[in-house]
């Protein structure tokens, strides 16, 4: 009989401490340093440019814009929902996000029974662009007045030269 492989190690293992981590009883060990886990979305930084949606391969995020009820008429409240069950955690969205609003945390414990457990929802309040001081009519009127003034000035200059 050839030397039985691993017999020595098996018998010595009996007396060594098992290497198992006591997870379900104890708490889960931390993941490696920059582990790409669950997405964290910071609504304040996001400028709703849509780069993340365009660059996401499984298109796991959806953006819904609704007028903000409290604010001025132009305000929008955009809800970002990242569906963790269809995300590949490639981190492209985090890289392409100009404002670094999306970061991938190292939380890997993503188990759940309903689909809602896997949705990461973030809200972005997008102010309406500042209203121009003048309304378009006023602008037109001001432009006309400027035009008229410029013509009067030229006429006066021509008259002066003519003299």
């Amino acid at each position, binding site marked *: 009989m050839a030397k*039985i492989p*691993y017999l020595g190690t*098996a018998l010595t*293992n*009996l007396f060594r*401490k*098992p290497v*198992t981590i006591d997870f379900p009883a104890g708490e889960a060990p931390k993941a490696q340093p920059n582990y790409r886990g669950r997405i964290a979305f910071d609504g304040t930084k996001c400028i709703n440019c849509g780069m993340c949606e365009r660059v996401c391969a499984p298109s796991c995020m959806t953006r819904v814009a609704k007028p903000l009820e409290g604010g001025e008429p132009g305000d929008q409240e955009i809800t970002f929902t990242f569906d963790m069950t269809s995300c590949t955690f490639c981190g492209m969205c985090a890289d392409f996000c100009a404002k670094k609003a999306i970061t991938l945390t190292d939380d890997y414990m993503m188990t759940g029974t309903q689909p809602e457990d896997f949705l990461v929802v973030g809200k972005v309040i997008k102010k309406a662009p500042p209203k121009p001081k003048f309304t378009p009519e006023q602008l037109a009127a001001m432009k006309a007045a400027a035009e008229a003034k410029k013509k009067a000035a030229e006429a006066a200059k021509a008259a002066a030269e003519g003299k």
Partner: protein
Amino acid sequence: MIGFIQSVLNILLLPGLAFTLIASILLAGIDRVLVARMQRRVGPPVLQPLYDVLKCLGKETIVPRKANEKVFLLAPAVGLISVLVTAMFLPIGNVSAIRTNADMIVILYLLTLASVTLIVGSAASGSPFAGVGLSREMVAMISYELPLVMVMLTVGFVCGNGLATFSLAKIGAYQAANGPLLLNPVLWPAAIALLFVIPCEVGQQPFDIDEAETEICEGVLAEYSGKPLAQFKMMHNVKMYVMSGLFCALFLNIQTGFFLADILIYCVSCVLVTFVSMSVPHAVTARFRVEQVFKFYWTVVTGCAALSLILVWIGL
């Protein structure tokens, strides 16, 4: 009348039914923990076999359409009963539940009956995986039956001093008189042969060619679920206890004066035998192929058994 009550108590409690069930579950649990520890992992709780069996009892039993229903449901029950009755014959010290003067032949046949019920049950289940599984079980039976018989003949012949005896009581008495047979160097090859036979008889990991999960999807038990599965799993555990008990009866029958010490020694030696014969091969080697099992048993193991048979025959 007291004798009758004594024998009924023997059967029901001590070396009999209750002790067998508890011992087999604990033994199976210890075996799984030891294998886990040898792979440096924590391993399941010791009562895991009990949870497995109870869980299987709770699950729904599906009888496939192509199966022959009566045989399909009856075979596991007969298998479990035959193995439990075998356990009655094993002596603890010198006390055994049932005592006849040809124990070994009855044990040999009841173990064969257990394997046959496994085969007939899987044949009745009508699944091709079971068909392949039962032929592997038969090959395993052919391979381990020969050395098992030779070891029994050897021990019977040594303890019979003249007329061969098949009764475990006489063997126990002989060992009480001049020390457990394991110390007798002539019988070492026979002990080694029996240690090799035990895993194949029980269907333990390296030799479980009939229930190979990876190759033939649980082979013999492919179609079993719920209660019959619970019986087969319980049969597996009890067989593990019976075989290690048989080894202790044949080679390690240490009889001190009082009964409690006997029980303790018996349990420790059973655990030891299970560790050496079933846990270590399980943790160390991978599963054998079918013809490797056959070739291994008919060359190496039968060689050991024949060696000690001839040595004993010459009159050493």
